[in-house]
């Protein structure tokens, strides 16, 4: 199966995406940002259709939309409003706009399903290069803010006497999530972002008790699902996203089950 160029690209893209999704997912799950992540993928859909409408690459439109939306959500969330409510409002607006741009741009349904459900087998060399560059930036930014980000995600209540750079971390984190969601949706589609960003980290937290091990195990779960999913998809000619989803959900259910039995 690796004789085919498109399968090589798919495996490489899958590997890069799983790496990012597992690492970023660890912080997303710890900070209870699962709903935000899901909403960002809907917002990403709007961004992608806007991109196609004005003639940009879908990924660029997606990143612009998700980044600005997550900054908006970050600025709006405060002691007065519940985070989830703000997120719903912004994502409702986004889906509406996504439908509008889809109609205005006369975008084909193939392009739309590609955005919604992923099109990993259609990834080109150029897409792959872009993915690798973005992934590199995300990992670099994450590493440089590791300690502040760890406290923000795992124990926000304990954060006080903050320096300005620590206050910035909230926003840096939101943009990182936005970019990661955009990258991941290349693989599983924006509807299934949960599958790679949230589920592997949510499963991993039932086994290990340190941040670094959490990231490692989340990446391993994501990689396993992606590689096995791609292989079965190749053999059966059925959608990759379906198999990745099934594998990750199974891992999650098993993890919860064994934890409840133990605890």
């Amino acid at each position: 199966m690796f004789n085919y160029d498109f399968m090589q690209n798919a495996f490489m893209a899958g590997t890069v995406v799983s790496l990012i999704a597992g690492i970023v997912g660890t912080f997303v799950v710890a900070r209870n940002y699962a709903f935000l992540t899901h909403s960002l993928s809907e917002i990403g859909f709007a961004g992608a259709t806007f991109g196609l409408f004005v003639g940009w690459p879908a990924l660029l439109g997606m990143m612009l939309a998700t980044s600005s939306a997550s900054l908006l959500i970050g600025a709006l969330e405060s002691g007065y409003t519940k985070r989830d409510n703000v997120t719903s409002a912004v994502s409702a607006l986004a889906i509406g706009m996504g439908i509008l741009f889809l109609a205005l741009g006369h975008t084909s349904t193939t392009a739309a399903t590609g955005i919604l459900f992923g099109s990993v087998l259609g990834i080109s060399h150029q897409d792959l290069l872009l993915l690798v560059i973005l992934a590199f930036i995300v990992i670099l930014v994450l590493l440089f803010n590791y300690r502040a980000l760890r406290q923000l995600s795992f124990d926000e209540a304990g954060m006080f006497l903050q320096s300005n750079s620590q206050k910035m971390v909230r926003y840096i984190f939101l943009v990182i999530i936005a970019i990661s969601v955009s990258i991941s949706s290349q693989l599983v589609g924006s509807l299934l972002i949960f599958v790679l960003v949230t589920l592997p980290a949510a499963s991993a937290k039932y086994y290990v008790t340190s941040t670094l091990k959490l990231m490692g195990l989340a990446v391993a779960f994501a990689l396993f699902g992606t590689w096995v999913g791609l292989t079965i998809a190749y053999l059966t000619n059925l959608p990759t996203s379906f198999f990745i989803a099934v594998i990750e959900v199974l891992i999650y259910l098993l993890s919860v089950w064994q934890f409840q039995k133990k605890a």
Partner: protein
Amino acid sequence: MGIIETKNFGIRYGERVVLSDVNIDVPAGRFFALLGENGAGKTTFIKSIIGQNQQTTGELLVNTTLIGFVPQFRDISRDYPLSISEFVSLSYNSGWRFWLSNQEKKRISESLTRMDLADIADKRLGLASGGQQQRAYVAQALVKSPELLILDESTASLDHEHKVALLQNVTALQKAHNLTILFITHELKLVSQFADGYLLFKNGTVSQGEAEDLNVLTLEMTHRHDEDEVRNV
């Protein structure tokens, strides 16, 4: 020079005056109980000390930057993944290194030992008992060797035995390291065994008193204290 001094200090929230005419002087190395009904401004005052209130009048001098703070509410569910020792290490929240230096490791293990957590350092915080969790919160606040430790109702959810144990732990530190402790609480009877003085939040201002006066207050407020105990159960 006291570790916390105020001169005609006041705090507002928009139009509402929370505290005014506060004139207190807390000497270093003492254990002070912060008393008063809910909504009397105890937590708001603490927020000013840790630099989170903007709308203040008068003067507030905090003569240390080494502050440890244990907030009242924390969101720790049963599936919270981090171990107690990793939770304590979250205090090291600046810089980019994703590993701990030897110095940092040493401080963390000292802090764990002080709070009797060394044996369960690898236990999941989410699966630890209420008393263990509170001790972990205090251990986290102690990691950077603070000169001022602020506890916001840290004993409220514990049974009597654990309440006493926690306060014995922190008063031992107070004596050994000249640590100043501000302890927000409703549990007068309990705290009167440990405190050197108190700050009473009442009628929009704060009055300061010595430990001897606590017993008088205890009698006056016994009725209310009982109500609080019922609520805490």
